[in-house]
């Protein structure tokens, strides 16, 4: 609808510009190909992007899983290894989601509804884990609790050498997934608290309820949909997580669905593809249900709009100082201690030594940054792949974000859902879909992308498209549509309106989207773990292989450098925050 109505005046203005020879006047203004652009072009860019980046990979995956009929599918799922991995996946995802919800809920309450001091700092401190790759978290905790923990050794608390690291296995996976996703629960529940109007609580108090009773009788029921959505979000992220069960589960042969898929492919090669496709569909199904539940619950029951009048903060009274100390103590335990252990491990000449003035060395950094071919190459590869993905998606997001922001109704819902799909589904699923698409040479050109940078880049484009698109769409939606109508009234054709009037207004959002894509791609392990080959390894892969091969100190150095790069980018992005649409930055 909207593109036709916007499109109509374009043709009339063209004729008004120079009635005698419209074609000539246009070709003088813009290059020939662009002169053909009208308001429907962005729409087609969006549709084509969605088909290539979302419909193709998942269509191919579904064909591979169900193509041979339903029996092989059932047979694969009823194998004992598949069943065990499915049970494990549910087990760790459920328990870890409870941990996330408990920690994130308590934090959200303290930050969003009480008179605790230093709320901004607490938010930042607890949202940082969101920006740290899961495999880095896992590595850091391994360094913290192992018998050779440099940190525990220096305070004499390390477990006896030779004993098993308690972080390995089911318990460690649950704990770390819980910690990793606390930020997700925190963000969702804080938004929920912001949606509770302050005067509703005041009304309950006018009815005779104390502050706490008013909050629990009236506020909590209003928070219920957000609790459900937060749980579903944490659950989905845990189901798809690869980095944590890969580092903590695989050494003990405790497998979840993503690690089972990885192990099958790693051990048996691409011949296993049809069978792992079945597992990938199963993971997608579990994750998909959770995503749909959270999206539905939030859309149906929760107004994401902030209340006109915010909640009056509860007075903690004498509990305030203990609460504040508790929150910061928790942060030291969950974030500072593991990262310190990671840094300590990266400064040792070899794994297991205590850290002191004699053993301190920067050798690992010199090794990974300058000497080892494989790490220098991985830094190059990760920078290049993440950078290209960011740049390409930024450019793609401009026309497609415009088109999406002007759509409404069912077409918008369907297109948005399709764009979200590759990001919402676990990376391991996307990787399988990519292998299926590109294992054979491309038709017509007869070039094989399998084993090249190309396949990783396309996977990144597919997976992170939505990260670039969301802020740009939001920014376009915030622009007054009259602005465009006024430009049309002045005689500006579509290309003019788009480049001169609209795009300048959304550039900060596009830049933010690009940096978000870069951050996520730079941290990424799951997709490249299945798609890399010698020469195209990413940082995630190198870290994983180092740890797998026992080069823990080198892995730690790589991890520390990654964290530094990420934190620098986060700080950069945060300084842009005031120019971005609200909700662009996950940690704000």
């Amino acid at each position, binding site marked *: 609808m909207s593109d036709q109505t916007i499109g109509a005046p374009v043709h009339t203005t063209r004729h008004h510009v120079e009635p005698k020879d419209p074609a000539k006047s246009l070709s003088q203004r813009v290059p020939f190909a662009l002169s053909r652009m009208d308001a429907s072009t962005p729409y087609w860019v969006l549709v084509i992007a969605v088909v290539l980046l979302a419909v193709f990979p998942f269509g191919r995956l579904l064909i591979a899983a169900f193509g041979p009929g339903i029996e092989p599918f059932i047979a694969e799922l009823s194998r004992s290894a598949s069943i065990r991995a499915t049970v494990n996946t549910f087990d760790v995802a459920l328990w870890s989601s409870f941990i996330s919800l408990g920690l994130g809920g308590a934090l959200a309450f303290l930050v969003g509804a009480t008179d605790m001091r230093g709320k901004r700092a607490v938010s930042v401190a607890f949202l940082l884990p969101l920006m740290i790759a899961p495999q880095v978290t896992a590595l850091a905790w391994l360094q913290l609790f192992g018998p050779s923990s440099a940190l525990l050794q220096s305070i004499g608390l390390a477990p006896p050498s030779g004993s098993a690291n308690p972080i390995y296995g089911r318990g460690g996976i649950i704990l770390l997934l819980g910690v990793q996703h606390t930020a997700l629960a925190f963000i969702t529940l804080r938004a929920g608290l912001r949606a509770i109007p302050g005067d509703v609580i005041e009304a309950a108090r006018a009815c005779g309820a104390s502050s706490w009773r008013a909050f629990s009788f*009236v506020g909590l029921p209003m928070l219920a949909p957000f609790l459900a959505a937060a749980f579903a979000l944490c659950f989905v992220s845990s189901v798809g997580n690869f980095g944590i069960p890969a580092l903590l589960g695989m050494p003990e042969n405790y497998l979840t669905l993503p690690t089972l898929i990885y192990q099958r492919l790693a051990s048996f090669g691409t011949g296993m593809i049809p069978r792992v496709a079945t597992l990938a569909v199963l993971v997608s199904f579990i994750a998909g249900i959770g995503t749909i539940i959270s999206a539905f619950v939030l859309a149906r029951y929760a107004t994401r709009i902030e209340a006109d009048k915010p909640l009056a903060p509860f007075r903690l009274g004498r509990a305030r100082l203990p609460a504040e100390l508790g929150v910061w103590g928790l942060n030291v335990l969950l974030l500072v201690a593991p990262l310190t252990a990671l840094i300590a491990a990266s400064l040792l000449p070899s794994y297991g030594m205590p850290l002191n003035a004699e053993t301190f060395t920067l050798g690992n950094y010199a090794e990974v940054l300058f000497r080892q071919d494989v790490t220098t190459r991985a830094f190059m590869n990760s920078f290049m792949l993440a950078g290209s993905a960011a740049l390409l998606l930024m450019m793609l997001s401009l026309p497609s974000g415009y088109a999406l922001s002007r759509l409404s109704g069912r077409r918008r819902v369907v297109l948005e859902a399709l764009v979200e799909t590759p990001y919402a589904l676990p990376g391991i699923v996307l990787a399988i879909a990519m292998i299926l698409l590109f294992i054979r040479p491309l038709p017509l050109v007869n070039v094989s992308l399998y084993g090249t940078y190309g396949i990783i880049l396309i996977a990144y484009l597919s997976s992170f498209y939505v990260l670039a698109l969301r802020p740009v769409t939001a920014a376009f939606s915030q622009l007054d549509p009259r602005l465009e109508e006024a430009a049309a009234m002045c005689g500006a054709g579509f290309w003019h309106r788009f480049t001169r009037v609209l795009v300048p207004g959304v550039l900060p959002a596009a830049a933010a989207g690009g940096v978000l894509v870069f951050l996520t791609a730079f941290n990424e392990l799951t997709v490249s773990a299945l798609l890399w080959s010698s020469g195209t390894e990413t940082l995630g892969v190198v870290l994983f292989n180092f740890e797998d091969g026992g080069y823990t100190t080198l892995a730690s150095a790589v991890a520390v450098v990654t964290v530094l790069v990420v934190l620098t980018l986060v700080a950069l992005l945060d300084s842009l925050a005031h120019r971005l649409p609200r909700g662009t930055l996950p940690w704000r």
Partner: protein
Amino acid sequence: MGGAGIHLTDCAKTFPDGTRALLPLSLEIAPREKVVILGPSGCGKTTLLRIIAGLETPDLEGSVYFDDDDVTGLPIEARRVGMVFQSYALFPTLTVAGNILFPLRLKKVPKEIQETRLAQLASFVGIEGLEHRHIHELSGGQKQRVALARALAVEPRILLLDEPLTALDAALRERLRAELSSLLDQLGVTAIYVTHDQAEAMALADRIVVMDRGAIAQVGTPFEIYEKPASPFVAKFIGAAALIPAHAHDGGIHVQGQRIASYADKRGDVFLVARPEDLVPDDEGPLQGEVTAATYFGDRKRLHITLTDGPPIIVDTPPDTSIDAGDTTRLGLVNDTPRILTP
């Protein structure tokens, strides 16, 4: 229903950021009195209401008494006040009955008594049959009634209404205003009503408290406020009055040297309060001005006139008058005892 008297002494409110929302003020409100706090936005009227409610505490030197009870330090839940919020603030997760009975359920009142109270209140505010509806199924007017019923279910000593009609459209607002006025009369409860709408204030109040920039500008009956505004602010805020500079001497009021009425109270510079109904076009009249705009309203024609060497004023005339924009006209007073304001 009981009604307590309210005694406010030296109540001021300074917010943590240093803004003084309320300057120290004292106010006595009699039991069962209906008082409307009237003023433009930002005048401190809502802050005053919230101090009475117990949602804000006054600065240290202030005190709030309900009859002989010192309630200054009590939070709202311990004050037994009923409150109707501008946004209604109905509990979205409960039904109409759940909302109205919320205060009774908190006190664990027996089920039978709850049922009786619900029936009484529903019939009193006129929402019988809606008890099991969800809040999102109600119209604005119905929500307003539910909010009132819930406030009354508290059996309040004092009923507080914070712009309860502002969220409604104009036609409904007028109907509910009349209805609310009669409900409040039947209740006989002490009621404090905050609004920025002078018609609402006139219709509902025993007494009006006009507020301006954190202070009380005037307290009086609607008649007193309209007829004897205590300051230029009150005159301009109530009834769209223009203030025409005048001089009182020799037992008369003089505008631009012209004697326009007799007046013996004071001497010196004064203002003549000119509301739209106070002046009429009159070829013999003492004032003269140019009509800048004329608007036909059906029941009257409203003229915007700029007085020669004077302020712009508004004059309502019969709808069939022939005066139009661009004309020059002479004006006279409707009656011989004009309202005079001494600066």
